[in-house]
């Protein structure tokens, strides 16, 4: 093998992985002011779970530890990191402390989003001590960022229905639980958002981070926000709006009007797409590549974290998927929606495994 061929062999073998270490600008720059483009990292859904004493579920620990260590390797360095919620499994202080210690190893400023697993034991009290406000906003290089606490629900369910805080936490943690309750942003926070957005010009890109999707996908698993339409209405006047959410532990993307939606992976475990919902004939969310079964040997399989590229106010998410083909979902300015850059064309898709 000649040196040239050898170089090609090695580069081909490593091309996908190499790009994952160098956040790429997903969309070609045509004219924009380059100083306004930047990257950040997004880690979510660690579900740190206390067993007893000093013992925590090892697999969930390893997932977050590895994502943090890898984010510290990024070159060039991201401007900040977002943790997308569900740091804890059952909202315990021990879990939040253990998780916060892992997040503290990040070499970057870190913004945190509230998840229902962080909240329903003490209604976010201890989380606040560690991470601050439940909802807030800031500006960075010409982009307005908003963090919402989207996992609230009806006051009656939260305050009056359950004999203990522990039971309330467990009821909200269950899937397909008839005792559960839909997530919502709530009136108080929507009023705050309305006021917060008043000072932002309509051509300023707005990026919202929430734990649950600010769109309605599947109620049984709370892939859902009850007042999604009201929140969307507040975002509607802006030219470029993106919502990035966790909770669903899988890649999803969608476009509603001017708002792009992107979901992120979990570091803990993958969820499948809710089958019962796709069986109905719907056109969205655009789930082109269903999540396959996770390899039971390889604990990091079907988990991951994201490098996010902000290009002229629109995001491209590069998913770092362990021992797997990395994927990039980026906003396509021609079609006006986020798209998977490799698997959009039907002929390029990998058929899902349908029997095991």
């Amino acid at each position, binding site marked *: 093998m000649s040196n040239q061929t*050898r170089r090609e062999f090695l580069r081909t073998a*490593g091309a996908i992985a190499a790009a994952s270490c160098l956040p790429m600008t997903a969309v070609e720059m045509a004219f924009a002011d380059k100083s306004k483009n930047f990257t950040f990292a997004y880690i979510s859904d660690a579900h740190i779970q206390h067993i007893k004493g000093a013992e925590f579920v090892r697999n969930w620990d390893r997932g977050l530890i590895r994502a943090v260590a890898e984010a510290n*390797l990024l070159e060039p360095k991201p401007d900040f990191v977002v943790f997308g919620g569900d740091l804890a499994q059952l909202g315990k202080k021990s879990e939040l402390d253990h998780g916060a210690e892992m997040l503290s190893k990040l070499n970057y400023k870190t913004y945190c989003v509230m998840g229902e697993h962080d909240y329903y034991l003490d209604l976010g009290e201890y989380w606040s001590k560690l991470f601050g406000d439940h909802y807030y906003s800031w500006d960075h290089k010409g982009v307005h960022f908003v963090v919402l606490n989207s996992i609230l629900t009806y006051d009656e369910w939260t305050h009056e229905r359950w004999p203990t805080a522990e039971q309330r936490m467990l009821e909200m943690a269950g899937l397909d639980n008839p005792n559960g309750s839909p997530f919502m942003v709530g009136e108080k926070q929507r009023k705050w958002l309305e006021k917060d957005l008043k000072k932002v010009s309509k051509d300023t890109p707005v990026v919202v981070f929430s734990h649950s999707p600010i769109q309605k996908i599947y109620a049984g698993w709370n892939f859902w926000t009850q007042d999604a339409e009201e929140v969307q209405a507040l975002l509607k006047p802006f030219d470029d709006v993106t919502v990035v959410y966790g909770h669903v532990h899988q890649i999803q993307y969608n476009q509603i009007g001017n708002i792009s939606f992107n979901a992120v992976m979990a570091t803990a475990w993958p969820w499948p797409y809710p089958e019962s919902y796709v069986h109905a004939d719907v056109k969205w969310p655009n789930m082109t590549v269903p999540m396959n079964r996770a390899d039971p040997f390889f*604990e*990091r399989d079907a988990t991951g974290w994201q490098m996010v590229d902000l290009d002229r106010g629109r995001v491209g998410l590069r998913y770092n998927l362990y021992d797997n083909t990395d994927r990039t979902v980026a906003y396509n300015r021609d079609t006006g929606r986020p798209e998977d850059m490799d698997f959009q064309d039907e002929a390029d898709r990998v*058929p899902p495994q349908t029997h095991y």
Partner: protein
Amino acid sequence: MNKIYLASLALLAAVVVMSIPAGQAPGSSPPLGLPPVPVPEGNPQTPEKVALGDKLFHDTRFSSTGEVSCATCHAAEKAFTDSPLKTSEGINKLTGTRNAPTVLNSAYMTTLFWDGRSPDLEDQSQHPFVNPVEMGLEDHRPILDVVRSDPEYVEAFKDVFAKSADEVGMTEVMMAIAAFERTLIAGDSPFDHYYFTGKASALTEQQKRGFDIFVNKGRCVSCHIIEQTQAVFTDNRFHNIGVGINSIQDDVPEIASEFLRADASLAEVDIQVLTDPRTSELGRFVVTHGFDGVGAFKTPTLRNIALTAPYMHDGSIATLRDVVVHYNNGGVTKKDDPVNDFLSGGIRPLNLTEQEIDDLVAYLESLTSEEYAHLAGDAGSGK
């Protein structure tokens, strides 16, 4: 679907075509437990080429001191390793960073070197000549000077490649060495007789219990693969198993960034990983620049493993028993050491008992090929 299906058919066809000329001796069938040796289309096996490769493999003139050949660190009497050295001694007793892996069955590897930075045996063979801590040549010129002037070589190259002295280049040298290495195939172990021919008495009761742990509780087989009709005991992939990388854990971001910014050429990478221990521990990352590669090294075959102590890419674990304990601890050699941040998701504590650990070691000792069995007892068992 169709596209992928056709592509895999084409791939299968290519493999079949490549497999026809067996590596061991042209025309002969592979030893028990091993598939036919893959031979690249452009470099068919011939007895004359193999003999030429053998001669090149043992020639010490291809080093700057005239004292080191390929066989110095891959010695037949040490099952083609440099056991018991942790890392081999090249010219002037200089040592590198990596434990010399056995050449036995390397013909089945889909990449070469511990970090897979070389795609085949042909390519691999050219690098140690010019590595400063191995054979130390400035460039390949001195090799060509020898093979173009030594009458035996001139004759042999003419015979094998139909090339005159002036036409012989490194390509022919590399092809001959690779052809020789493709004959270093060893199966036919007690385990092969037990598993592939159903001879129950080939293994002891303890080894049989160890085999059960190998495929079940120990989860070894997930990477050291055994198939229905053959076993090469490797997945040809790269895993961070918590060896070496711990020594640079806190500095990984700095070392990795430095490495990426330098954007070293492949030749530079080759020298860097053998001369700089810190870069060496980045493992597969230096080739792919990907997160999965940090601290990851190639799964070695387990055939003849009892003969090739010490173990791991850096030779840091002295005995097979210590290797099993390392895995039993979930990827740490000493139980209370920190677990590596980049550890592969397949590595987790196994909760094996002392007895089970002994059983597993006994099983690993059943993987020694009959023709190398006389070398056993020197190293490795941990007893």
